């Protein structure tokens, strides 16, 4: 059956797709990274970045230049581009773009709640929140004492409201509960996003569903690995895994019982995609699990650009840009700490 994306997509979204492909072409190349790696100071890095598409984005900053400032400015730039896409989008692309911002909103809510626990001022934290996850009720988040409070009083008007079903409880918000809240919210969000893409059908579903399945599986592995040696019980751990993806349901059940990295590796051996990834962990390059998963994510996002007439290009572009920001921040940290042995651990994109 002819789905019709090729016929109708460009009417509403053609301009934005063209724009995002243009933005993608301006991502840093391998040669740019080689130049950046050779910089001796952060000022050198700034000068090299001026020759790329970043231009004079650090021009307003007086000395001393810090890694944190570079990171903030790059994020602002990405946010500016994204807001442009969002302002010019029509449905259903606008809903898709709103779904993309939900993950940053969740991070901001958790940052604000942690800040409240540490008795930090709201202004200080608001300055550090991710610009893509801004919403109007942010300033009121720190007064909530329990998740139900948080939902009823503050977040009920935001796009995060539908994700609160599993998280309602009267427990006070301490570190453990905040972490559980973060992961449960993220799980509900991923499941909702996956359902939206699947229901949309067409090329978007063909491109986005595998990417989101990989995201779900990645979260399951990382949560499992980080929970070894903590007070998180196995039952609690299982409730945090998203209920879709290649690992669902048998793999997730096995992962919930894993007690160390080797047992996790045994679970991954059942899946052709994840076996080589987990085998690459450690080794001579000292790669961590997060590194191998980021590499795989970059591969999948670059492939998304090989198809036309779908919304996945927007998601892929934002994720690739974020990886580029991570790369530049890593190189900047190695330069500022004068520790150049691991400076080549970035992940090249183009």
């Amino acid at each position, binding site marked *: 059956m002819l789905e019709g994306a090729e016929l109708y997509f460009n009417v509403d979204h053609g301009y934005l797709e063209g724009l995002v492909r243009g933005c993608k072409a301006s991502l840093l190349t391998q040669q740019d990274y080689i130049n950046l790696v050779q910089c001796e100071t952060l000022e050198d890095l700034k000068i090299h970045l001026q020759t790329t598409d970043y231009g004079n984005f650090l021009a307003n900053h007086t000395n001393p230049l810090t*890694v*944190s400032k570079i*990171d903030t400015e790059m994020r602002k730039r990405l946010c500016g581009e994204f807001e442009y896409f969002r302002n010019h989008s029509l449905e259903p692309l606008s809903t898709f773009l709103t779904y993309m911002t939900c993950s940053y909103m969740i*991070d901001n809510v958790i*940052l604000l709640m*942690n*800040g409240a626990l*540490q*008795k*930090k001022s709201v202004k*200080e*934290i608001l300055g*550090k*929140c*991710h610009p893509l996850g801004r919403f109007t009720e942010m300033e009121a988040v720190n007064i909530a004492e329990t998740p139900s409070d948080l939902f009823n009083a503050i977040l009920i008007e935001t796009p995060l409201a539908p994700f609160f079903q599993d998280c309602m409880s009267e427990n006070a918000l301490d*570190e*453990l509960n*905040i*972490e*559980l809240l*973060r*992961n449960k919210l993220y799980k509900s969000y991923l499941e909702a996003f996956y359902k939206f893409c699947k229901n949309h059908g067409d090329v978007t579903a063909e491109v986005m569903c595998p990417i989101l399945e990989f995201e779900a599986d990645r979260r399951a592995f*990382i*949560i499992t*690995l*980080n*929970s070894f040696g*903590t*007070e*998180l019980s196995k039952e609690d751990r299982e409730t945090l895994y998203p209920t879709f993806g290649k690992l669902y349901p048998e793999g997730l059940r096995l992962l919930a019982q894993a007690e160390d990295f080797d047992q996790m590796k045994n679970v991954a051996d059942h899946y052709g995609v994840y076996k080589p990834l987990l085998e690459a962990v450690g080794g001579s390059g000292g790669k*961590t699990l*997060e590194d191998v998963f980021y590499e795989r994510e970059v591969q999948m996002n670059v492939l998304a650009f090989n198809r036309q007439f779908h919304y996945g290009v927007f998601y892929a572009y934002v994720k690739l840009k974020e990886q580029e920001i*991570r790369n530049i*921040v*890593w190189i900047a*940290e*190695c330069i500022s*700490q004068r*520790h150049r042995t*691991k400076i080549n651990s970035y992940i090249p994109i183009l």
Partner: protein
Amino acid sequence: MAALDLRAELDSLVLQLLGDLEELEGKRTVLNARVEEGWLSLAKARYAMGAKSVGPLQYASHMEPQVCLHASEAQEGLQKFKVVRAGVHAPEEVGTREAGLRRRKGPTKTPEPESSEAPQDPLNWFGILVPHSLRQAQASFRDGVLEAKKRKCFLEQVIQCVVSPAAEQEAEDESCLEDWAAAVPAETSAKAI
């Protein structure tokens, strides 16, 4: 003859000092390496968790240390350093290898029951599920603290070892030199005559 012995002893002391300084330098290198590793692991944690998740927003302005270093004056002016882990009652005594008894803080320390509660692990400031690099950073910094303490003890030891005997030697040496200086003109004048 006494002068020659003194000089030999001075020489051996100087050699010992230089040897100790070399060892001290080795310890300083280890300390620096640990601290650098710690900072790099923190950068890796930022890479994995996001740049703003590992930073000054996550800790309170007032914090309780997990490990304290207590310095006390022992006999002969030597300093003893004790590592006290908060929440544990027996302080570990590390440092001068004198025959010191391990002091145990027994039940006589109960007047402050609130402070005996172990302070929270700083790893929890960043959430419960922290990446491995953050744990590595904590381990590196912890080793760094122990190295710094060992180095300080060693430094004290070196200085004390050399300064007090050397001061004595110098006083003796000066008197010897004076005698020798007095003796030389007598000899030369004797030869001249």
